[in-house]
């Protein structure tokens, strides 16, 4: 079987506009959550006017001016992250490489800022003239299309949508295409720009937004806090990376996917456990080989206790020896981009031997009894790790990674 490695990464989120700044903030335990700046929060109820927003972002510094009219923030974020990842990998897409490379991007919603802007004009201002580029900004496949256009990548290119598991499902699709020999490389990750008034109101109505902050696995946790951004990776075969003599960040060892086939919103321990088991099996790894889990850890009462039970079911006695953390209190819950941003954390843990912390932990909840690395990052060797994403709709996707193979 072809072994797949990660040779480039890029990110933009509330913690920074590149992967290095994002990772540094994660090791420092810095939170990007704060009062929402760019929408009128008077129209929100239940005072949940917080999110992990991207700030001080000047798209012109990253993207050519001529391209910008076509881009919702969703695609801007995707391009910023993809450009960084491709630059780091050193790959260029000339000749056959162009058609032998895939672009797969996880997107949970779509170009919401553009959509809401147009509909506001129509419904509330009754202005009938729409900007002609609305559709190409809104469409959920805009991010992979823009990446393919910017880099001349002509292989399989599409969006994967599974709400909060979109990134991990996207990574799985890209990995499976490489393994099948359909392509030799992929630009893959997730993007989301979901901090809009309409979406926030819809989340509020579900009563899952925390009014204070995001405190995963903690006593008195009160829900999730939305985030936004993108993270992208370059995947290629180990053989290709070795032939090119480039630095391998980590090996993408396995992927696992499952559906709860139960409730549309309430999570299932059996479903999450099935995806974790499938990822381990796919990677050919035993539970004992895993040192760190980057948890889905949204901070809702239901997710965190259910995920804890699922981890116990899969890891047995070893669950007590695992470091488990949720980085969502730092970058927020970025829905379709969540798994990709969390892979930045997971790769960082493998490469640097530092496990990012779970912030805002107030104390133990009896239903959450694992080692959540509260408050501060921990230096410890991490040989292999998994990153969990569990979506509304009962869709689960888990990615297993391990340290770069020796000599690569």
């Amino acid at each position, binding site marked *: 079987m072809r072994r797949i490695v990660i040779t480039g990464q890029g990110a933009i989120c509330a913690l920074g506009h590149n992967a290095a700044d994002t990772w540094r903030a994660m090791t420092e335990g810095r939170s990007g959550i704060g009062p929402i700046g760019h929408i009128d929060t008077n129209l929100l*109820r*239940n005072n949940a006017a917080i999110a992990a927003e991207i700030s001080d972002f000047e798209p012109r510094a990253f993207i050519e001016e001529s391209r910008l009219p076509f881009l919702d923030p969703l695609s801007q974020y995707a391009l910023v992250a993809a450009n960084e990842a491709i630059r780091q990998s050193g790959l260029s897409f000339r000749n056959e490489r162009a058609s032998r490379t895939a672009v797969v991007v996880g997107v949970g919603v779509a170009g919401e800022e553009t959509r809401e802007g147009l509909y506001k004009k129509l419904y509330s201002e009754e202005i009938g003239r729409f900007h002609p580029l609305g559709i190409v900004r809104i469409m959920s496949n805009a991010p992979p299309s823009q990446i393919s256009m910017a880099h001349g990548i002509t292989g399989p290119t599409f969006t994967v949508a599974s709400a909060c598991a979109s990134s991990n499902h996207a990574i799985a699709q890209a990995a499976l295409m490489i393994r099948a020999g359909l392509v030799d490389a992929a630009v893959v990750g997730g993007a989301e720009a979901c901090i809009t008034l309409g979406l926030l109101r819809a989340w509020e*109505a*579900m*009563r899952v937004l925390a*009014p204070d902050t995001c405190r995963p696995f903690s006593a008195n946790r*009160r*829900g999730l806090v939305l985030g936004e951004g993108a993270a992208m990776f370059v995947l290629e075969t180990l053989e290709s990376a070795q032939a090119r003599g480039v630095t391998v960040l980590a090996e993408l060892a396995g992927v696992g996917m499952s559906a709860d086939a139960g*409730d*549309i*919103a*309430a999570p299932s321990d059996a479903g999450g456990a099935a995806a974790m088991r499938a990822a381990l099996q796919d990677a050919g790894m035993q539970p004992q080989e895993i040192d760190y889990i980057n948890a889905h850890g949204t901070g809702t*009462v*239901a997710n965190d206790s259910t995920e804890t039970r699922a981890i116990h079911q899969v890891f047995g006695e070893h669950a007590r020896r695992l470091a488990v953390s949720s980085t969502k209190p730092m970058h927020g819950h970025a829905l379709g981009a969540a798994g990709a941003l969390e892979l930045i954390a997971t790769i960082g843990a493998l490469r640097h031997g530092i496990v990012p912390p779970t912030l805002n932990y107030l104390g133990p909840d009896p239903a959450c009894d694992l080692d959540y690395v509260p408050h501060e990052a921990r230096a410890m060797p991490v040989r292999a790790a998994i990153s969990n994403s569990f979506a509304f709709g009962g869709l689960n996707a888990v990615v297993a990674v391990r340290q770069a193979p020796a000599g690569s």
Partner: protein
Amino acid sequence: MSTQQEVFEIISKQAKIELDTIKPESTLKDLGVASLDAIEVIFDIEEHFNINLPNEDTDFENGTVGQLVQAVDRQLAQKSANG
């Protein structure tokens, strides 16, 4: 009709259970109203009375429907005080 009767009728309709099985000391969980069904019950109550129930007043695990009725009464009182 009292607030309690109105709230209980909304719950019975949404949860498809007999009205007389709902007691003030029941929790929505006891009544088999969980997850999004519980959120929908709260939404129906808000729509019916034209009030907003803060998250603090909607503890589906431990809060009783009697407490929910009190929360509705508090919001109604506040609404009439605000004119």
